[in-house]
């Protein structure tokens, strides 16, 4: 790694490897995040996303490799850049016995903010996150969404130039998730560098400029969203909601419609083609075989399609698995 950070790069990671005993959590990954960029880190449960954040922020020891944050070599001293970094962990970790205002003031004090400054900043953030009315309520009595928002506020209390967000919208209600996404976009607009891990691919597509796909501890692809989408942009995708899994029809359908790429999942048939998809013959084919079609909708190819293509992981299953682990929530 060069002595000085590359022009524009604020986080530089080279050959990061991390094991927990026999388990290789992150395997020789390299990437860089540019100053002011919103960088997404996408992958299923256990892919190595949180481990990567933990190593970058000093919560886990680096196995091998090199890390530079804002030009500071953190390879040997992970605490060296902690003053530049804010972290919103995947689970709320504030003090249940303190109220919202006290929690924020305490977190601000950890970064050395004087009393007046931290109280003003805490009030400002409580207002931004719509938590002013709950400021004097103990954190233990907050709802899941409120806890998440206060944890987010605590992560940015010291206005860090670099922000690590670990699954910031997982397990929270739709309104809170929207608000959190809006705040992420605002922070990014104001110049904060954001490193976002998420399993919500549409969230990454909406927010990020560049993403890395991580699977089994390895980065399988890193690119700009626009560049990732480019190869699938011209494709036509049609989703048919069907009464049958269509598993037994798969072979016959592929034979009858060789111009299409067909994919059957329970209750759904996905048709992908370079040309326009003619819906009539498809519906006739299905109905003649006693399969009812209840809905047909055209879909624009998305990052999810690219993710599935690159990683071979079904994005829907990944989302369900994560939501189950987070105890519900929706987007």
């Amino acid at each position, binding site marked *: 790694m060069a002595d000085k950070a590359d022009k524009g790069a604020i986080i530089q990671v080279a050959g990061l490897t991390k094991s927990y005993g026999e388990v290789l959590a992150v395997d020789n990954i390299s990437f860089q995040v540019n100053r002011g960029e919103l960088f997404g880190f996408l992958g299923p449960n256990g892919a190595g996303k949180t481990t990567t954040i933990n190593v970058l*922020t000093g*919560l886990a020891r680096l196995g091998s490799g090199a890390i530079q944050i804002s030009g500071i070599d953190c390879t040997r001293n992970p605490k060296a850049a902690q003053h530049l970094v804010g972290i919103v962990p995947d689970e709320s970790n504030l003090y249940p016995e303190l109220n919202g205002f006290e929690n924020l003031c*305490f977190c601000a004090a*950890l*970064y*050395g903010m*004087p009393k007046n400054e931290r109280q003003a900043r805490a009030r400002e953030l409580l207002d931004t996150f719509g938590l002013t009315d709950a400021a004097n309520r103990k954190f233990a009595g907050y709802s899941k969404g409120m806890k998440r928002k206060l944890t987010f506020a605590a992560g940015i209390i010291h206005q860090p130039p670099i922000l690590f967000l670990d699954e910031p919208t997982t397990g929270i209600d739709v309104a809170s998730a929207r608000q959190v996404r809006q705040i992420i976009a605002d922070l990014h607009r104001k110049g904060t560098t954001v490193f976002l891990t998420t399993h919500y691919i549409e969230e990454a597509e909406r927010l990020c400029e560049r993403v890395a796909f991580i699977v089994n501890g390895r980065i399988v692809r890193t690119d700009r969203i626009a560049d990732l989408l480019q190869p699938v942009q011209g494709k036509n995708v049609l989703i048919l909601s069907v009464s049958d899994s269509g598993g037994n029809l798969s072979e016959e359908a592929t034979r009858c419609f060789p111009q299409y790429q067909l994919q059957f999942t329970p209750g759904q048939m996905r048709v992908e083609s370079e040309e326009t998809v003619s819906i009539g013959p498809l519906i006739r084919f299905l109905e003649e075989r006693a399969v009812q079609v209840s809905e047909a909708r055209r879909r624009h190819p998305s990052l999810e399609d690219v993710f599935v293509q690159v990683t071979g992981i079904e994005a829907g299953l990944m989302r369900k698995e994560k939501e189950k682990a987070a105890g519900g929530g929706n987007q």
Partner: protein
Amino acid sequence: MKRWIAFWAIMGKDMRLYYLKPPNISWGIIFPLAWTGMFFIKSGSGLESVLALLPGVMTISILFGTTSILAVTITFERRSRSFERLLLAPISLELLMLAKTTGAILFGVINAFVPIVIAAFMADLSGIAWSLVIPAIILIGIVSTYLGLFIAVSVSEVFEAQTFSNFFRFPMIFLCGLFFPIMALPVFIRPLSYILPITYGVDILHGAVSNQNIMPLSLDFLILGAFCAVLFVLSLHNIKRRWIL
């Protein structure tokens, strides 16, 4: 300056959240007084034994007050992940652990004065060498706290912290000369007394209260100071090894 803001914030938060809670009052004050009462009644002596019992009661108050709370709260904060927030703060691990332990040390020192105040109503304390008592109390507070820290970083669960603390604390009551003179112990047990840090603190207190120390006071201070340093360094080493994986 910024680092000291963080230091005071951590210490103040711990004092507020943990040290003035019912478990501390029972472990740090009521429990030592109950033990003392037991020894007092068992000895059958009158108020003249108050001065002889005072060093033991002060020490046991500090020991139980500091170890019970520190071992449990640090383990609890680890479990609830709020300790991670402290680890992410831009302060050194040394300063962070000093902040975490200073509150416990202060609490231990305050605990030591509870029996002193009670004893003041029962006996004449004018002969006590306070210039020795105060540094001894502080050093016993530090060494007990670091013992609690050492226990906290060696376990993962709150109940383990309590069990492990008792494994250290209860033998100390009998082995460190708190209520039974070390010289009255069987010869083969005495080496155990000398590897326990509290022995040296109690010896200073015996010297200060009734001039009955068995070792030179300068040696007591030196060994107690060394125990403080070793326990702190060992605890930091364990934190780095066990918590920052």
